[in-house]
């Protein structure tokens, strides 16, 4: 870096650190998706089918996620029911 560069744009984060932040987020996201068991999509579909027997919901109204911590796995199921 020369004397002329010294005066300009100090506060902006470098493009490399932006790249690192973006990569860490997308790579972490893709890794959790990769580690999900193969049965998850089918299980989600079957859960939707069961709920539909009683309440009319769209397939995007059920969010399903599996989180693994060191000691246990948590299956998180989030169903949005329509307004009465």
């Amino acid at each position, binding site marked *: *870096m*020369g*004397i*002329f*560069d010294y005066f300009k744009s100090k506060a902006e984060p*470098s*493009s*490399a*650190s932006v*790249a*690192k932040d*973006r*990569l*860490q987020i*997308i*790579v972490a996201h*893709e*890794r959790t998706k*990769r580690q999900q068991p193969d049965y998850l999509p089918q299980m989600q579909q079957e859960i939707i089918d069961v709920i539909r027997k009683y309440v009319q919901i769209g397939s995007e109204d059920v969010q399903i996620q599996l989180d693994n911590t060191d000691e246990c796995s948590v299956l998180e199921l989030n169903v949005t029911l329509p307004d009465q």
Partner: protein
Amino acid sequence: MAKIIVVTSGKGGVGKTTSSAAIGTGIAMKGHKTVIIDFDVGLRNLDLIMGCERRVVYDFVNVINKEATLSQTLIKDKRTKDLFILPASQTRDKDALTIEGVQEVLEALSKEFDYIICDSPAGIEKGAQMALYFADAAIVVTNPEVSSVRDSDRILGILQSKSKRAEEGKEPIEEHLLLTRYHPERVALGEMLSVSDVEDILAIPLLGVIPESEAVLKASNQGTPVILETESEAGLAYTDAVDRLMGEEKPFRFLEVQKKGFIKRLLGG
């Protein structure tokens, strides 16, 4: 039993073939009998990088289809003792490689060679999966650039789930990161991901860092593996990487900006 090493990356153009040629040559120079296999069916290029393109008679697919024997097909390198090349086929038939066929050829080579280097095609399709399926170790070639790092992570996922070792629940494939086309100057300016940035994201052990170097293009122009350019930084960095692959401890070189004079620094030259 030979050790099978795949050179892979996901993304194209990051230096897989250059690295396969350099590392295969480096291992053979240490006295281990080595064969480099070009898995890029349809887009053969290892022969050009190794400078043996005019000596190709038969290819990998001919061997699989029993149209030629291995000894008819293997090309003996003229510069390096103990080094052989198995060229890819130029066929456009995507299904020319079968898992059984590849296995048979690798088993036959395993009896004669100490190291088998598999130069993978780009992508994550069948060709790339075939190249990594039987591997004992993987060299993941990555450029310090977002799309290459992301693709490398995807390839790591495939190594950990779709390889023979993964499917049979054996000890996982040894993973090595090879960072290529590295510009210390641009890293210092904050314009390029640093070695430690890429190590943080991919979280696999670092095998080597190859600086961007004019010697790489020059060597490929002439059909010489760049590791033989012992005057160049890239050649020396590959030599270090091979030493580390063989278990030696080597300090990393060419990671820092070379010191410039005070006046030059002041003017930003």
